[in-house]
């Protein structure tokens, strides 16, 4: 059961949250001006890293605010939480215990 630090409410159980996929994917400003490939990239393709991922969460059974987190997808370790619109924290490359 992940323990998540909502930037607005504090530490809460995973069950109060919903995962929103990879963060920092901006909707293209002029969809009509971009190619099918670029549009397809926006709606379908995600990085899915083994390691550090910047991702979105929403405190759906709490304050209902969206925010961002940095998580190591191998160890499930959270390396930081920040509000939407804030700069992501810099994460150094690090060795993690592989499961």
């Amino acid at each position: 059961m992940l323990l998540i630090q909502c930037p607005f409410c504090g530490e809460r159980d995973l069950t109060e949250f919903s995962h929103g996929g990879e963060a920092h994917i901006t909707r293209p400003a002029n969809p009509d001006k971009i190619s099918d490939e670029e549009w397809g990239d926006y709606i379908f393709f995600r990085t899915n890293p083994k390691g550090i991922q910047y991702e979105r969460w929403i405190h759906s059974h709490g304050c209902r605010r969206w925010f961002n987190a940095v998580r190591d997808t191998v160890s499930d370790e959270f390396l930081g939480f920040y509000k939407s619109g804030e700069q992501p924290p810099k994460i150094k490359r690090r060795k993690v215990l592989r499961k």
Partner: protein
Amino acid sequence: MSQSRRLVKGGRIDRDKPLSFVFNGKTYQGYEGDTLASALIANDVRVVARSFKYHRPRGVFSAGSDEPNAIVQLEEGAATQPDTLATCIELYDNLSATSQNCWPSVEFDINEINSVFMRLMPAGFYYKTFMWPAKLWMWYEGIIRKAAGMGLAPKHPDPDRYEAIHTHCDVLVVGGGPAGLAAALAAGRTGARVILADAQCEPGGDLLAETDELEIAGEAASNWVSKTLAELRDMPEVRILERTTITGYYDYNWLTALQKVTDHMGPDKGGNLPRQRFIKIRARQVVLATGAIERPLVFAENDRPGVMMASAVRTYINRYGVLPGRSMVVFTNNDTAYQTAIDAVRLGAQVTVVDARPAPQGDVVTRAEALGIQIMDRSVITNLHGRMGVKCVTVQHLGEDGTTLLGKPIPFSCDLVAMSGGWNPTVHLFSQSGGKLRWDDDKTMFVPLAGPAINPSRSVGCCNGTMDLPGCLAEGLAAGSKAAKDAGFGTGRAPKAIKATARPEAPLRPLWEVSCHGHKSRFHDFQNDSKVSDLELASLEGMVSVEHTKRYTATGMGTDQGKTSNVNALAIMARIQGREIPAVGTTTFRPPYTPVSFGAITGQDRRELFEQVRTTAMQPWHVANGAVFEDVGDWKRPRYFPQGSEDMHAAVLRECKATRDSVGIVDASTLGKIDIQGPDAAKFLEMIYTNAWAKLGVGRCRYGVMLSEHGMIFDDGVTTRLSDNHYHMTTTTGGAARVMGWLEEWLQTEWPEMEVYCTSVTEQWSVASISGPKARDLLAGLTDIDLDPEAFPFMAVREGSFAGVPARIFRISFTGEVAYEINVPTCYGLHMWETLMEHGKAHDICVYGTETLHVLRAEKGFIIVGQDTDGTCTPMDVGMDWIVSKKKADFIGKRSFTRSDTAREGRKQLVGLFTDDPSFVLPEGAHIVDTATPKPPLRALGHVTSSYMSPNVTGPDGVNGDKGRSIAMALLQDGRNRMGDTLYVALMDGRVKTVTVTDPVFFDKEGERTHG
């Protein structure tokens, strides 16, 4: 004789409180403080169960949750519990238990015939034997389940109450043995919030099985335990959870525990307390002090009743005052079993020690010899006699290679074999936490290596491979202090060391399997009847991976999770494969550590507390008037209102007809309603919906469709402009929460600069929708709003009063009739409804439910999102090109319309279907094909999405009338180019129905009735 094996004194039982209990129909006596196992041993009941596969007689084996044999069915009727461990059942008065997996009785079991044919039933037996013919598998399975099953599941609902709760602490100490007590003490003294969880009825761990010779802090160990518990109980921040097993260790130090609150009292004796509590604990720091489990020795016929673990024998002697055998052979490869020999001899037992080690030396050996115990060194048991209980063992010398047997076999008469093959640290929870193990060659055991950062824990004492008492105490104190410091309490310095009796141990001699003569059964997994020969066969048949071998031989897959069998099996596999033990690898330990009843996990979340039920303000009226309900999301919605003996079909035909003839009324309160306000509200809706919103006049309504970015419809509804910057949006009933989340997501993450506020108001408003030719007449007498079609046109809203209460009335229609959706604050909902029903009598009002609602809208070809669409439908696919703005530069999903797949010809499109047989209603989901004689393989051209009997539609053959005529909507490949085509619908039962493709609008195509 009653309790013939009970010692005259000693033990932690209360001899002033005798209890009587029934096992397999026979009444016995025991004492408070006994377990069912100790009481059975006291009464010399040797055969307690039959084994899983071969139905071999089995007796009590251990004294704890590692028990693989003594598994019983506890109590009868609704309160019965299968697969309970006799070693973990605290005795209570009038307890009743029976043996499992035997018929007609545990003494004489027909299926023991399996044992005779044992060589014909090797590993993988089921897979090999029962493969063919496939049709008979169900029959085979029935026989196998009966023969190989465990206990019987109760047939009645569980009568007990359970609680599932959450709790938090700074330091969770798992296990109340010496290391755990020391850790709790050190952590507790810092003021940290500490939970000490211990599985037994009293903490103390193995110290409870000790004699007073063992000293801690200058006094008998049991005194130290009492004093330590007293000190802990005085600490306000320390909680001691007795009878509580930590069953699972999950991410971020989230652990689950099962507390057996009243199990020890017996059924119905717990008063207001729950039977069990499932506790979900979030701990900042964890100290694991889970101890170690003694390893069995794998020798010939080692599963016979009377073969027990040496430490268990000692527990029965010292803790329960029971001597399990008077003539005992202690079979060991290490020092610890000598304590059992010493304690037994002192109580008058005859003891011989068979030690695999050559010339064992050391303090404990010397003490044993001083008591006159015969020690046979470099010796092993090579055979054992006594089907229903040990009678005799054969002992032989063991060569230096560890396998060769030397010299003459020597027989020993005995009634008990106490064995010890060393110890396995109980690393289950550590492993569950993601921790890695290391093989310690000196100690001959797996010990914790490193745990993951997200689960800060410390293993102390025996579960860390530290087997001596002073070491356990020291580790406990140090870990308790450090854990508290890491949680923000104290300095991290351990309290003063606690002195304790040291018992130096000589090294053991690894002995993973004991050679024997001929084909003898040597069990490594008792619960699953898995033998050395099964592991050898698995290897021969190509199983290399430990995970494959485990599944093929069922090793470690019982309710005991291989507590006694896993390491022995790994070592034997290593020998077979010619590898070192760590090279074979370990299996993954999975929760739960001990079985957990579903009732405990469920806790209070059952029946009406399991899932929330939402009802509208009009629910009492619906119930009183005989509504038949259906679930829509969490809502209970009336499906239809049968009159007299009507079935659904008759009721729906009547309701449909009445609505088009006079006026119908439906409770529409469940529709999702979202209040949208803010200066950017119009701009926001322009992006959310496909059509234009900026110029919608105040007081006007518009239907809208929402798309995902893929261009696919995901919800629809009517939104109304109440003022310049204020909108009232409606959504589908089931989609309300999803739409609310969708709006919030875009506003928060993509367009935070937009000033728009969304509020769910679904439950603020009660809604009655009246429609039909007499709807206006009905409403006229009840409101001050001008209903003249000029003043209050279609797709408009008016505010005013209705039956004396404030109301918003929307003139919108889902039936194609003149219709009004009357919204009043929910507190007036029932008043509004009753007023309409009362005044409606004069207008032949007819109440209807969701079924009629669906028929009426299908007659008009209106889609239901999620029924007629499935997440792959664009507005164009469902014939709603008109709702897509050609002028707007952008809206969500627009760009995807020009993707090649979305723009291609021949996509599945919404059409109507008329069956040739007007009385046959197609099943929804049925596939449309282009041949009257379908044979696989066959491509489906589409499927039926909605299908009803309609009393209002006239078919191409001119058929309609009171019995109705079948209509259907369907998604059909290239559907709009197939208008008028004849196609076929293939049914599950093999029948094929002929259909004609038509426009999906079946009734009043021009919409004259709506605008009337």
